[in-house]
């Protein structure tokens, strides 16, 4: 997988780490690093309630570089879209129920993740496509940032970031936003969280320009 990612000229890869293994350095990360990739630890949260989400954020925020929340319930979605400790929010493709639009989209501070693993030719393809188009339209209307991911667990699920941008463009994003969705946005998330881990007291918007001679 690492070799193929390098061939696709990927520079940064988010590797999903189970919550109980966040403290250690899994061997799988070395394989990606050896291929010249910048690896970011990613935690996928699937909370069933608002309290479960808040507990998980308190516990794991400083231990990983990317936190993604699957919004399976409206109560979870309402918190996840607003909490600045959440980097990515993901809504399962469905026609009704907890979907990304209206109030949720208007209050969203996190980046909306479009998961391409759900999109495959076959039964349900049109529904999934419609659902993604609707999510992207809601995001564009409310200036919510969008990113695309493959959620790959095998080399056959990997895709080139530029091809993902092509799909996002076909689904309704402008070409500029689509390219940003697979390049600038993921890099910004990781850079911001690395800075936050290094300087936990720095507030959002604070940037270190240089240090005083006495500090060095």
């Amino acid at each position, binding site marked *: 997988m690492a070799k193929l990612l390098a061939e696709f000229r990927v520079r940064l890869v988010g590797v999903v780490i189970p919550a109980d293994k966040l403290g250690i350095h899994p061997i799988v990360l070395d394989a990606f690093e050896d291929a010249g990739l910048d690896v970011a630890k990613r935690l996928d949260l699937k909370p069933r309630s608002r309290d479960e989400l808040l507990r998980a954020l308190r516990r794991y925020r400083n231990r990983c570089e990317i936190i993604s929340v699957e919004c399976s319930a409206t109560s979870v979605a309402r918190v996840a879209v607003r909490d600045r400790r959440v980097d990515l929010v993901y809504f399962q493709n469905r026609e009704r129920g907890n979907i990304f639009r209206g109030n949720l989209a208007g209050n969203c501070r996190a980046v909306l993740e479009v998961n391409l693993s759900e999109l495959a030719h076959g039964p349900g393809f049109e529904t999934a496509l419609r659902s993604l188009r609707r999510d992207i339209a809601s995001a564009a209307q409310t200036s919510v940032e969008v990113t695309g991911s493959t959620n790959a667990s095998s080399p056959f699920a990997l*895709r080139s970031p530029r091809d993902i941008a092509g799909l996002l463009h076909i689904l309704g994003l402008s070409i500029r936003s689509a390219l940003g969705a697979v390049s600038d946005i993921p890099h910004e998330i990781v850079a911001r969280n690395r800075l936050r881990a290094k300087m936990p007291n720095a507030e959002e918007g604070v940037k270190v320009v240089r240090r005083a001679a006495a500090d060095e």
Partner: protein
Amino acid sequence: MRYFLVKFVARDPISADVLENALYGSIERMFGKFGSEELRTRFIAFEESSKLAVVRCTSASVEKLRTALLLMREVDGAPLAAGVLRSSGTIRGLKVRVRGLRRR
């Protein structure tokens, strides 16, 4: 026209004809018969050992071809991945880039 160097990832050896049909099928399912005509896609060459192919489409439909390639997930029931490694406006330019790719 725009030319693409496409990398296919498959477990077993795969023939050019099978891949060509799978690509045209993916384009047609995504954009319909009329839309696929607009792409003017042509499967120009395929090297079985490296699973690299050269595919062509019109300059205006670059994103559509990329999307069709992205949505290719299986062929004859076996899993498959496809991704564009390089693109060029001329086939000659693409050959230069392939040579650069092989030298690395």
